[in-house]
C-alpha cells in the first residue's frame, strides 16, 4: 500500500512516478539521510530509532561489511579491519595517505594506483568504504519512503577539491545512488535556515563536529552562494572535549595512565554523558568504576567544565579570524552565523562564537541534522517536487558549452565551472556572400573538434538579409538557468530575425561520460591544438578560394589576360591540393602564394570598383 504525502498546490505527481529524493550528509564521524515529506524536512531513523549512522565500516573474513554502530564498537579492538573517518581518505593517493595520521592502515598496490586498504575481508578503496555507508542510508531511505530513490544530494566540505568530489560521486554511483548534485556543507546549512531566500548577505558557518572544525564564509549574491574563505582544524572537535573531561575524572578518581581499553572506554563514555548533561544543567554527578571495581562518585559544574575545555574552544576562534581576513571582511560584514555540528550545543561554544561575531548565532535546527536537512530541501527541488519559483541557484557547469564554427571547430561560449544561472553572448558572421541562413550546432565538451564533443542540438537561423560575407552580425546567446536548462538564441542584429532552441545539457551526459570527456580533453590537449590549427588554415584556404572564384566569375575576363589567369588558376590548384593534406605550414604558404599572384588583379578590381562608384558624379561631390 502506498502511503501518500501532501504536495504543493498543483504539484501532485502521476502515480508510480513519485520523485523520491533525499539529502545525505556523508560525515567524517557520522552520516545522515533526510527527506522532505508534506513540506517538512526530516532526517530518517533506522529501525532502532537512531538518526545518526556512525561512518565506520568493518571488514571481516567471509562476511559482508558491517556498517555503523556495531562497527564503531569494534573499532578499538579491531582497528586494522575497521575503517573510521574514511572521509579523510577520499580522493587521496598513497603518498598523501602515508603522511596522514588518521589513515594508519595497511595499504596494498602500487604508488600510482588507487590506494587500497588491506583488511581481513579483502582490499578496499576509500570509495568502496564510503559506498557501504551510502548503501545503508539508501536502504533506510527506500524503506522509509516506500520506493526507489530518484536521486540524492550529497554534501561535501567546501574545501573538497575535484578529486575528492569525484571520489564522493563515484562512491554514490557504486551505492546505486543517482547524484542530483554535490552540495557544499556550509551551503546546505545556510539553505536549511532558508538563508538562500534572502537576496544578499555574508554568512559564517561554524561547524564543530566530533573530530573536525570548519569555518566557512559564504557570500550570497542573487541566490548564488559563493565560498569566500574556509579555515579550520582537521583535528579538533567534541572528542577532544571528552578527553579533557576524562582526564579530569581520572585525576579525581585516582586512575592511572595505564588504564586498560575497557576502562578508557568507560571514562570517555562517562565524560561524554557529563558534557551532554551540562548543556542544560549547571551541575551533574559523575560516576566511574575503577579497575578494582570500586566506584568513584563526584560532581562537575558547568563552570568547571568550561575551564577544562576553554583552551579547545579558544582554538576555534583563530581560524574564524583567519577566514575573515582571507575573505577580506570585518566582523561587521557578517550578516548571519550558523551553528553546525553536535559540539556547538556546548553552551560555552555558543558564548564564545557570539562574543567573537558580535551577534547571536542561529541554533534552532538540530546542529547534527542541519546539513542533511539543507541537502534534503535542495534534493526536493532538484527532483522537481516544488513549483518553479522555488528553484535554487547553486551549481556550476560541468563541461563547456559552445557551438560549431566553420571547419568543424568548436567555439566555446560558456566555460566549464561557470556558476549558473549564466548568460553569454558572442557575435558571429556569415561566411559567404549572400548567405541567408545559418545552421547553429550546440556542443558540450572540452575538445577543439566537433566530433570529439557531445552534440546537444541543432537549429537554423533563416531569412538573414543577403549581404557580403562578413557583413551580417549574428549574436548567439547561451543561457543556462538554475536547473541546468540551456537555451540558445540567435539573432541577426540589423534585421532582427531570430531563432532559438532549448536543451538540457545535464541530461545529455552521464557523469561517467563527463569524466571521460574531461580526461580525453587533457589527454588530447596537444593533438587537439594541432587539429584546430590545421582546420583553421583549411577554412582560411577555402575562404580565400571561394572569394577568388566568385570574383573571377564576375570580372576575371575584364581585368586579366590569359597568362595572368593561368598563373592564378595554377596557384589555386596547388592550394587545393595542399589543403587536402595536413601540413599546416604548406597551406599557409600556398595561401600566401595565391594572394601574391592575385595582388595585381585585386588592385585593378579595387580601382575599377572605385571608378564605377564615382562615374556619373562630379568631383566636387566627393570633396566635402
Amino acid at each position, binding site marked *: 500500500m502506498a502511503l501518500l504525502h501532501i504536495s504543493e498546490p498543483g504539484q501532485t505527481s502521476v502515480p508510480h512516478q513519485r520523485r523520491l529524493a533525499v539529502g545525505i550528509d556523508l560525515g567524517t564521524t557520522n552520516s545522515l539521510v533526510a527527506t522532505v*515529506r508534506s513540506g517538512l524536512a526530516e532526517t530518517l531513523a533506522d529501525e532502532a530509532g537512531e538518526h545518526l549512522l556512525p561512518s565506520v565500516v568493518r571488514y571481516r573474513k567471509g562476511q559482508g561489511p558491517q556498517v555503523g554502530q556495531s562497527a564503531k564498537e569494534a573499532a578499538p579492538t579491531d582497528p586494522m579491519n575497521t575503517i573510521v573517518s574514511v572521509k579523510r581518505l577520499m580522493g587521496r593517493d598513497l603518498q598523501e595517505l602515508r603522511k596522514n595520521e588518521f589513515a594508519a592502515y595497511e595499504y596494498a598496490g602500487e604508488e600510482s594506483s588507487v590506494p587500497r586498504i588491506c583488511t581481513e575481508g579483502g582490499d578496499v578503496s576509500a570509495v568502496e568504504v564510503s559506498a557501504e555507508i551510502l548503501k545503508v542510508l539508501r536502504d533506510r531511505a527506500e524503506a522509509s519512503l516506500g520506493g526507489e530513490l530518484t536521486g540524492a544530494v550529497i554534501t561535501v566540505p567546501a574545501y573538497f577539491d575535484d578529486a575528492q568530489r569525484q571520489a564522493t560521486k563515484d562512491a554514490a554511483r557504486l551505492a546505486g545512488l543517482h547524484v542530483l548534485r554535490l552540495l557544499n556543507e556550509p551551503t546546505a546549512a545556510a539553505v536549511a535556515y532558508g538563508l538562500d531566500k534572502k537576496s544578499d548577505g555574508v554568512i559564517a558557518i561554524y561547524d564543530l563536529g566530533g573530530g573536525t572544525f570548519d569555518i566557512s564564509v559564504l557570500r550570497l549574491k542573487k541566490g548564488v552562494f559563493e565560498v569566500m574563505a574556509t579555515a579550520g582544524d582537521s583535528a579538533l572537535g567534541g572528542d577532544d572535549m571528552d578527553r579533557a573531561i576524562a582526564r579530569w575524572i581520572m585525576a579525581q578518581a585516582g586512575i592511572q595512565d595505564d588504564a586498560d581499553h575497557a576502562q578508557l572506554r568507560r571514562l570517555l563514555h562517562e565524560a561524554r554523558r557529563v558534557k551532554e548533561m551540562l548543556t542544560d544543567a549547571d551541575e551533574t554527578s559523575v560516576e566511574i568504576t575503577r579497575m578494582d571495581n570500586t566506584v568513584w562518585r563526584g560532581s562537575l559544574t558547568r563552570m568547571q567544565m568550561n575551564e577544562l575545555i576553554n583552551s579547545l574552544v579558544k582554538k576555534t576562534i583563530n581560524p574564524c579570524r583567519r577566514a575573515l581576513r582571507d575573505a577580506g571582511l570585518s566582523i561587521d560584514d557578517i550578516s548571519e552565523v550558523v551553528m553546525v555540528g553536535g559540539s556547538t550545543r556546548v553552551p560555552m561554544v555558543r558564548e564564545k562564537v557570539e562574543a567573537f561575531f558580535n551577534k547571536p548565532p542561529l541554533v534552532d535546527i538540530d546542529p547534527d541534522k542541519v546539513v542533511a536537512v539543507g541537502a534534503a530541501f535542495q534534493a526536493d527541488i532538484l527532483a522537481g517536487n516544488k513549483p518553479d519559483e522555488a528553484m535554487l541557484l547553486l551549481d556550476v557547469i560541468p563541461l563547456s558549452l559552445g557551438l560549431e564554427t566553420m571547419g568543424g571547430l568548436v567555439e566555446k561560449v560558456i566555460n566549464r565551472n561557470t556558476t549558473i544561472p549564466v548568460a553569454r553572448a558572442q557575435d558571429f558572421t556569415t561566411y559567404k556572400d549572400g548567405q541567408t541562413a545559418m545552421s547553429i550546432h550546440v556542443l558540450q565538451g572540452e575538445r577543439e573538434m566537433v566530433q570529439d564533443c557531445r552534440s546537444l542540438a541543432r537549429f537554423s537561423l533563416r531569412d538573414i538579409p543577403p549581404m557580403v560575407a562578413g557583413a551580417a552580425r549574428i549574436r548567439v546567446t547561451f543561457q543556462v538557468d538554475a536547473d541546468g536548462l540551456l537555451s540558445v538564441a540567435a539573432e541577426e542584429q540589423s534585421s532582427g530575425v531570430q531563432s532559438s532552441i532549448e536543451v538540457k545539457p545535464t541530461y545529455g551526459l552521464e557523469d561517467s561520460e563527463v569524466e571521460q570527456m574531461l580526461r580525453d580533453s587533457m589527454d588530447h590537449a596537444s593533438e587537439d591544438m594541432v587539429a584546430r590549427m590545421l582546420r583553421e588554415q583549411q577554412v582560411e584556404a577555402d575562404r580565400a578560394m571561394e572569394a577568388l572564384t566568385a570574383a573571377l566569375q564576375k570580372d576575371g575576363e575584364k581585368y586579366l589576360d590569359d597568362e595572368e589567369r593561368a598563373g592564378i588558376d595554377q596557384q589555386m590548384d596547388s592550394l587545393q591540393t595542399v589543403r587536402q593534406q595536413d601540413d599546416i605550414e604548406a597551406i599557409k604558404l600556398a595561401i600566401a602564394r595565391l594572394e601574391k599572384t592575385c595582388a595585381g588583379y585585386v588592385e585593378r578590381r579595387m580601382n575599377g570598383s572605385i571608378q564605377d562608384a564615382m562615374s556619373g558624379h562630379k568631383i566636387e561631390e566627393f570633396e566635402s
Partner: protein
Amino acid sequence: MAVTLTDTAADRIKIFLENRGKGVGLRLGVKTSGCSGMAYVIEFVDEINESDQVFEDHGIKVIIDQKSMVYLDGTELDFKRDGLNEGFEFNNPNVKDSCGCGESFTV
C-alpha cells in the same frame, strides 16, 4: 456527503500546515491517471476555487472539488506507519479495485 480525518491524520496535517507557514487547508481529490484509472490528490491549498466544497474536521479545512466529491464521499483519511515508511492513506468505501501499490484505483 462527507469526508473525515482520523485523529493521527489531523495531528500530522496541523504540523505540516504550521511548518509550511501559509495556506488555508488541505485539498483532497482524484484525477484520472494511473494504472487503474484514478489517482488521489493530496495538496496544500492557497486558494479556494468556486467549485470547491469546504468541510471542517478537527479544526482543519478540507477542500474538495465537486467532481472529486462523487468519488470520495465517505472517505476517511488516515496517517499510518508501516515499518519505516509513513504517510497518508485514503480509506475510500467507493473503491472497487486498486492497483497493487494502491496509488490508483477504480470505482
